[in-house]
């Protein structure tokens, strides 16, 4: 580096210090790894964030009956809230029926949503294994896992949902193209 550019750099640093005093770093406090773990609940489509544990559709049938059926119906249909099963083949009709089986593109999203938001009156009250179990049961209602099937953090992201290819990204915010240099 030439002495000229060294001088130039020193000028920038000085100006920078004057323009941005130390207050910029006085806000908030460091987050500890343990407390981050408490809130870091999101699950990605690649399975990142899924916890250890597992559950079977058979176990899930009971969990569903205890905590979900009152709103979603005994078999995920006919309840007062969102229908969870059936509807496959209706998306291009005049009366599309959007359910986990007919519409949801990722099985990981199902675990994430149950885990964060369900059961509606007491979100977060199901154990990890119960959440896996009820996830397996809802998938089994849609024929996506067998009636005696089991899901865990390894198998869930590998499930290919029937409507996986049913989504077309908006051209402006297409994740596959947005931040890639043309």
């Amino acid at each position: 580096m030439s002495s000229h550019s060294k001088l130039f750099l020193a000028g920038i640093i000085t100006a920078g210090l004057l323009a941005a005093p130390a207050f910029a770093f006085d806000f908030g406090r460091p987050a500890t790894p343990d407390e981050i773990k408490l809130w870091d609940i999101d699950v990605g489509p690649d399975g990142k964030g899924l916890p250890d544990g597992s559950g079977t559709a058979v176990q899930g049938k009971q969990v569903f009956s205890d905590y979900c059926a009152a709103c979603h119906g005994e078999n995920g249909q006919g309840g007062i809230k969102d229908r969870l099963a059936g509807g496959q083949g209706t998306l291009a009709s005049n009366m599309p029926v959007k359910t986990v089986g007919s519409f949801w593109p990722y099985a990981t999203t199902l675990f994430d949503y149950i885990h964060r938001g369900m059961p509606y009156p007491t979100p977060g009250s199901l154990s990890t294994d119960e959440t896996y179990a009820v996830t397996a049961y809802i998938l089994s209602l849609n024929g996506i896992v067998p009636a005696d099937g089991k899901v865990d953090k390894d198998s869930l992201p590998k499930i290919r949902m029937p409507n996986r290819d049913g989504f077309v990204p908006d051209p402006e915010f297409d994740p596959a193209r947005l931040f890639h240099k043309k």
Partner: protein
Amino acid sequence: MTLKTPIEMLSRPANMSRRGFVGGLSAGILGVAATEAANAESLADVPDRGPGAELGAHSERSRFVKIDRIPEATPGKRNVDPGDAINSKTPHQKLVGNITPTDLHYERSHSGVPDIDPAQHRLLIHGMVQKPLVFSVDDLKRMPSISRVVFIECTGNGWENWKKADPELTVQNTHGLVSTNEWTGVPLKFLIDLVAKDKGSTWMLAEGGDGAGVDRSIPLTDEIVNEAFVAYGQNGEPLRPAHGFPMRLVMPGFEGNLNIKWLRRLKFGNAPWMTRWETARYTQLHADGKARQFQLRMDTNSVITKPSGMMQIQPGYVSISGLAWSGHGKIARVEISTDGAKSWQQAQLSLPVLPKAQVRFQMDWVWDGRPTTIVSRSKDDQGNVQPDRKSFIAAMGTNALFHYNAQQSWSIDEAGRVRNVLA
């Protein structure tokens, strides 16, 4: 025609004679509540002046003003029990100006309105950052702040009219899921610098502290990084609980659902998380059965709010007024047709016209008493034009549920009754 009629006069009750009205004026817009007004035919009938009520700690609306949001559910389901409502709509037919009163800003919640003690609220920012940090509300309030007037619009705004037009609907029913407030808070860019975000992070997850833990993936485009902010102020006061107290994300021009309320976590990553709301919920099903995903920007839109659905007009002068907005930028022009979209005239815009904010428009009209249809269309400064219904439906189908921005038509029959129609 440049004749101007005060709004008050337009509220003349239907059963009142025109005698005593300003000479030459022969028209009015008769709102549904107009008959509640007491008669004051002569100035002698106007009540005497006298001492009024004591001064208060805050001011209430006049007892003569009946103005409320309406809690509603999905299209076609209304007059629902508040416990079954999923949104609550702004009464645009009763509002004037550009700014929505704070308590009438539309509300959409996915698990009710949490009762959050700000002293116990925390914002965690982590993920692909050098310094994961926890902030209190006070921390945010000590930071440099910005204030900005922007619209927020639920993507369900307009969803009543995808398949058919119920003639009984008011503009509150059809377009009550958009509002404009001034929001105050900390630029996202400032927070990004505090935590020292990794350059490789291109997406951000924003998560709310409501029961549903609503979360959305947000692409960190230059526009979003430069314009998004974490707000704690709304029209000059702390956020109302229904609108995210004590802090929310504000994303000017983008889907209402991205403006995460009760914000408690921002996580930086490099791909979308595919949350329930960006897959199963806020995606738009097209006629071929494929769904448009990440249609994050709210498009160019406008609606005539006066006269609008369920109002009644009389022949003569009518002041047409409404609101226009665009998630792309500023409204450049609003045009109104009073002959069913055959010919168009330019409306006046009420200054200031701000980017990504609603703007009031107005146009003078003389109704000749013959049945017709009135409709508005807007154009923004990026050249986007609000589509007519026919071409909009041709492109989107009728199953999309969200992102309805077709031109809104109101028919007027020979009796002056204004009704919701498709075109």
